[in-house]
């Protein structure tokens, strides 16, 4: 294997596409972490739910993909707010009313999901299903209203602060992730699904350009261009939002120092809610595009790997930085696409080196290892992404592009 083969066009295109998607997910992590120093484990599930919402909208109403994505974005913004409202907000401040409502809502929703699943299993149709489905839709809507009211500060004064320790918050996030994943499995089964080809614009599958020379020629498909353009536009837009708008300024203030921001009249909880909503909307787009790119991978567990990897991207670029998320996403995408090839290449070089210094046994052994690994190295693609994440956290916890001494775990 040569380096030219490893960095051939198909791999490069794959890396760029993955990187763009990871960047879109990573902004959700990086913004939330920047403000409340929490790894929002449930972000991967937001990504998954967004994909399902778009899929179901396309399947059941036949609406065009763009409209479905817009719907998914809205749904995910609501979901992001709900996650913050039901899981994290109560850890930040004590308010018995919010506590009771959010818990009752969460529990009721979970029970309804179970009921929905059971009705389906018993092949019950008609009124009961209708009622359960309606309730399933109404509970989050009701909670959403409460969440918005609470953020606007209309739900009464909170009763004191909670000493929310970071471990509790992280465990809560894991619990939220687990719950959402299971609910999705109950509602939509664990089967793998895909967007039907008919729902996707014909442009997606069309070859726009052909790059490179045979045998490493690669076609750039319409969907890849869409992913790149969408990612670029969204990231620039988001950057502008954070840099130039009033809300963006409030976000940056909160990331610096929540207490001071609050003293300056910033409604910290609504800024946090807004951050969740924006990050979630990005995740929804990323989810649909990811499903379009990979194809046939929509399942309740689809969010876990991209989620963790995108967090890695956020760390890589320097947590809290949107530009960093883009850079980190690209680096992780490249690592995942070419990590296996580069490893094999390195081992081969090493084998040559061993041969050159006259250690034939070592050379033969390494070559056998390379031969044995080569067929299954692609199964390790995520391992390289994880490996890079670990390396960065250990060596440069402030990220590849950040400055030491900044906020970090």
């Amino acid at each position, binding site marked *: 294997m040569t380096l030219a083969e490893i960095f051939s066009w198909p791999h490069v295109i794959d890396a760029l596409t993955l990187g763009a998607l990871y960047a879109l997910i990573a902004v959700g992590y990086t913004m939330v972490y920047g403000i409340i120093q929490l790894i929002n484990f449930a972000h991967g599930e937001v990504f998954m739910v967004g994909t399902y919402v778009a899929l179901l909208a396309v399947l059941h109403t036949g609406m065009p993909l763009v409209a479905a994505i817009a719907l998914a974005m809205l749904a995910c913004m609501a979901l992001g707010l709900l996650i913050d409202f039901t899981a994290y907000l109560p850890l930040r401040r004590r308010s018995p009313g919010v506590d009771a409502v959010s818990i009752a809502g969460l529990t009721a929703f*979970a029970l309804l999901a179970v009921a929905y*699943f059971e009705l389906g299993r018993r092949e019950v149709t008609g009124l009961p299903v209708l009622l359960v489905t309606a309730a399933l839709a109404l509970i989050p809507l009701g909670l959403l209203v409460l969440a918005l009211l609470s953020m606007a500060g209309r739900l009464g004064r909170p009763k004191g602060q909670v000493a929310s320790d970071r471990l509790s918050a992280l465990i809560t996030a894991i*619990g939220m992730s687990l719950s959402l994943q299971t609910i999705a499995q109950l509602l939509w089964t664990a089967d793998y699904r895909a967007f039907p080809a008919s729902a996707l614009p014909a442009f997606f599958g069309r070859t726009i350009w052909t790059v490179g020379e045979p045998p490493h020629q690669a076609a750039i498909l319409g969907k890849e261009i869409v992913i790149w353009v969408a990612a670029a536009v969204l990231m620039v837009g988001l950057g502008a939002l954070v840099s130039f708008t009033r809300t963006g300024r409030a976000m940056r203030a909160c990331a610096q120092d929540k207490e001071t921001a609050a003293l300056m009249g910033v409604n910290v909880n609504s800024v946090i809610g807004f951050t969740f909503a924006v990050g979630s909307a990005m995740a929804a787009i990323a989810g649909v595009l990811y499903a379009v790119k990979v194809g046939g991978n929509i399942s309740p567990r689809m969010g876990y790997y991209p989620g*963790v990897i995108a967090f890695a991207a956020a760390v890589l670029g320097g947590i809290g930085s949107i530009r960093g998320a883009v850079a980190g996403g690209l680096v992780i995408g490249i690592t995942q696409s070419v990590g296996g090839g580069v490893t094999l290449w390195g081992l081969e070089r090493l084998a040559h080196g061993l041969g050159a210094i006259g250690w034939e046994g070592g050379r033969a052994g390494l070559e056998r290892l390379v031969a044995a690994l080569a067929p299954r190295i692609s199964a390790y693609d995520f391992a390289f992404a994880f490996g890079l994440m670990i390396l960065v956290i*250990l060596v440069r916890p402030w990220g590849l592009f950040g400055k030491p001494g900044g906020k970090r775990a």
Partner: protein
Amino acid sequence: MRHLLRFFPLGDAIAAGRWGVVLSSVAVVALLLALPWLTGDPAAPSRWLSGCESRVVNVTLFVVVYAVLALGLNIVVGYTGLLDLGYVTFLATGAIVTFDLLLLVRTPEGLALRVGENAGLTGQPVFGFDGSIFVIMLIAGTICALIGLLRGIPTLKLTGDYYAIVTLGIAEIVFLVYLNESAFTGGAFGMKLDFAARPTLPWFEDGQWRWVKLYHDTGAFYLLALAVLGLTVVLSDRLDRSRIGRAWAAIRLDETAARACGIDVSRYKMIAFAVSGFLGGVGGALYAIWAGTVAAKSLDIWQSILILCAVVLGGMGSIRGVLLGSAMLFSLRELLRETISVGGLELRVPPEASFLVYGLLLIFVMRFRPKGLFPRGSGESVPVSVREEKELLAAPAHLYTLAPAEPTETGHG
């Protein structure tokens, strides 16, 4: 005399006059030992043995195996306060090592595993000797302790969520290795223990001692699992109530102050990683025998979360809490499989939903009882009765080095 008493389990509690602890511990042990008899068939030749096949004992055994694992995780999470999300590595490694050792045969060509393509391989099993399970548990534990140390080297300086995410990352990499390197793990299909490969334990049966094969529904395995759990509890408790445990508590509560008190933080974290890994490996070995099959695919990160859930629910750092948390969580898992009939309506929580319960539990426990349902007590590491304390104050204290005897009540220094 006091020291002789303290040498034995529960001796501390007796010496300090904590009779509630003593009585409840004895009662629980007695109940666990009598459980097969209570649930057994009175008509069977051995009521106790027949009870070992009952549903209740099976669920108990499941709880016991996972309680060993949960106590192992508790060493790091509860005592040193680091959120280890990669604990499944130890479970998987312990189970896989156990299977590899049991399936290892000596063939004319050398050593080989009866896994996958080699399943038909014949030869002398290397670990087929009677009572090998103890050796195997030790090996599995030791390997996992070494992995714990290895994993500790890069993660020593990390705290909080970065420690959590790095352990998660390492566990994912190990998971992918176990899934893909099928020569040692059976890959996606996993490995199975046939009758021949099962380890044995001595058992008194039909008037004589003989070696019996271990299955999850045999009395021998039930007693083995209980013994391992008992040893794990004693070990955890003794470490917790010692100089080591106080060093861990210091690290958990305030690392800066711990260093200022002369505690080598890295060293004590490493000890915790090794002990936690050891217990994870032993628990993995138990799990392997109990399950009879091991598939790398099913030993994924959610196993970590599941065990973490038991620790969090019961109370991080509290042995009683972790035991009760495991009992609640893992029997709940079984109970959720039951069908309840209410007024002709068959109610059953689908198995798919069990993780929903765990997820909600994590959220609710963290909100209302962040220290768990049965939190760690705030008592001294070594409770001492008033009389003993008088004796101690009267005895010379070599470690008290402040020079001229300040006239305290006892008047020496």
